[in-house]
């Protein structure tokens, strides 16, 4: 499965999104499910799916899906 597909599945799982809601422009402020527990779920999910353990600062500092994609890119995980 491609990295983008894995990320989309993860985001749908963690934030209970539909296909149409996905995209890098999706912001934390726009999602009621991206709360503190959602941040924990996302961090656990990123480690499970991509093998990268986010620091608490990285996890709580994310503001959008695009920010997560950029963070993963700096760790050598390319999301096409």
């Amino acid at each position, binding site marked *: 499965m491609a990295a983008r597909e894995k990320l989309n599945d993860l985001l*749908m*799982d*963690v934030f*209970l999104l539909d296909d149409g809601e996905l995209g890098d422009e999706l912001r934390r402020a726009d999602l009621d*499910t991206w*709360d503190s*527990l959602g941040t*924990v779920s996302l961090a*656990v999910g990123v480690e*499970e799916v991509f093998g990268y353990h986010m620091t608490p600062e990285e996890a709580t500092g994310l503001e959008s899906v695009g920010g997560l994609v950029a963070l993963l890119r700096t760790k050598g995980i390319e999301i096409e």
Partner: protein
Amino acid sequence: MSTILEQGAGASIEALDRAWETPETFAFLPARSSIDAAWAEKVLRALPDHLRQDHFALLTSGSTGRPKLVIGARSRAERLAKALHAAQNNEAAARAVVALPLSYSFAFVNQWVWATVHERKLIPTEGFRDPAALRQALVDARDAMLCLVGVQAPLLAAAFEGEVFNGVIRLHFAGGRFPQEQLPTLRQLFPRASITNNYGCAEAMPRLTVRSAEANELSANVGRPLPGIELSADDTQLLRFRSVYGAVAVFEGGRLREIGTEDWVPTGDLAEQEDDGTWRLLGRTGEVFKRHGEKVSTAQMLETVGQTWTAEAATYPDEDRSGEPGYVLVLAPAPDQVGVRTLLRVIRSRHARAQWPLRIEGRETLPRLANGKVDAAALSAEEGPVLWDQRT
């Protein structure tokens, strides 16, 4: 003192008829019980003199799995049967199709004692252990009452899809969540039946409240107490009752505890009284808890689940990775991913994340106790596919 082991509905009816005619107290035990008859006889022999005659004892393993021998007075059970008869206009029912084990207090009082007091006929079946025989009994039924537990509603729908049983005119549910979402199907199966939600517990021997299916849209609403019964909730919302029909004693954990008519008896459920005087269940005491400061009621979550999922559902407690309490939602049979997504969308739209299940698991069927209730211990011990994980 004697002990009767349930051996099929027909044989049990004959044994109960004989036991009711003799004064000595007897125990009526389910056939599939972890408690042996010798234990029950030992308890009976140790009863104080005033309980050694004109009483009966039923075993409740309950959903917690801790066995209790609940002792009722025959005169009270007969009074309750008469009160039910009057409260529900059951005089129209001339017979009852037995589809539950009679050792289950709801079936014992609502069907066997009722039939004894009012000289009505019982039609024994083995319930869903022999669906063909149950179907035939329902086809042959005339002006009949049928008592079920809520979890049997999906079984009815699956086993008898498209059939119509005009001979059933009273349909009673008790024992766990009332299958409100199954009402359209139930009305197709039993178009002439009035459908009733009954609530109670073994210590109530067994009934506390009653409401017609149409009286409320929430399955958790159990209506008002029967005449002779009072309900109250304490500061923690624990529901308690006082009843002129209730059990007179309970043997549990090696001790006999007698219950007076003025004693408040905890039901083990949490509840709130609505403005109209009816009561709404919030869940068992262990089923309402706080998670990250948010109140979680698994009964309310199952109410939400029932809006879109009409097959079997149950929950069991668990903790997340940080040790915070939560619960696992179990669905049977396991839905496909589309079904899971649909359900999750409904949950997302109505509940804060702290109220979401930790996981959703699938099972082929839910493990059941002999009385049809979900076996909580077996549910958490069994393994099934994880359909969704909140990852907290």
